[in-house]
């Protein structure tokens, strides 16, 4: 049967216990062969892992990395800018492009034409406002123009 302290023993071994529970487990260990054996196994596993000599990265490791960084990011200022700015620049460019398209396409322009131009020119759309040049056209003039 598994000891009820089996789980906290692992945390005790890893230094993750504090206060009264730490003290309780510490006292328990002195009288529980099962938990003592568990600690021994944990020590053996940890000791084996740490017993291997570490690998040492060669002398050229750093220079290879710096060379790859240099080759990948040779445009200088673009890649020294913080990532947030890098995301904003293309977004800002897109917004400017859209605004420029809108301003040049005249989508929102209201083109005012004179009544004469509208009736005689035939080059207006239903969106255009026809502006009366009140001083120059009488109702008769309008009537006459529509007959033509």
């Amino acid at each position, binding site marked *: 049967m598994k000891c009820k302290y089996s789980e906290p023993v692992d945390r005790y071994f890893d230094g993750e216990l504090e206060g009264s529970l730490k003290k309780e487990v510490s006292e328990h260990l002195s009288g529980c062969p099962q938990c003592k054996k568990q600690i021994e196994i944990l020590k053996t*596993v940890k000791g084996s*892992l740490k017993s*291997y000599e570490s*690998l040492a*990265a060669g002398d050229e490791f*750093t220079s290879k990395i*710096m060379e*790859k960084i*240099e080759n990948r990011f040779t445009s200088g200022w673009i890649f020294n800018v913080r990532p947030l700015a890098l995301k904003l620049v293309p977004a800002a460019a897109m917004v400017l492009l859209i605004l420029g398209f809108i301003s040049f396409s005249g989508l929102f322009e209201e083109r005012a034409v004179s009544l004469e131009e509208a009736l005689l020119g035939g080059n207006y759309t239903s969106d255009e406002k026809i502006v009366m040049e009140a001083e120059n056209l009488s109702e008769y003039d309008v009537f006459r123009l529509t007959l033509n």
Partner: protein
Amino acid sequence: MTDEKQLLEQAQEGNKAAFGRLVDLHKNKVLNIAYKLLNNYEAAQDVAQESFIKAYVKLGSFKKEASFMTWLYRITYNTACNHIRNNKLKTVFLDENVIASRGETAEKRELRDIINDAVERLPLKLRTVVVLRDYEELSYREISDVIKRPVGTVESRLARARARLKEILEDYIKG
């Protein structure tokens, strides 16, 4: 201010030489973590290099309150996971002369090999927590930050990994 913090600040301001110094400080740890996760020396070299390049690109997003090493471990872990996902990795063990500790008895070496063999055969998720805890001695909180899982998940994975290793060790002792 510590030397590393100074180098970090300088690197974040675009100083490549400062970043080079950071690589020098951490290259062995990153390489060893990569090797222990991948069990393949060549892949470990590739992953370690790629991890530093990713760190360089993401330097601007590193928050100074966190530990730089933990952040680097996270990048290495993610890069190793991607490497495994994208490649069918064959385990390539190093020459005994490269990694053997000197002055060991034959019995001790055999036990060490059995344990390390067992660790290497654990699934990546379990192997990761064992390596980060028992080899790198990170706290549960730090491991949680590296693998981006709750502390409870770290504890349960560690318990499962150790249960498997315990079975193997008990078989060895009985045998």
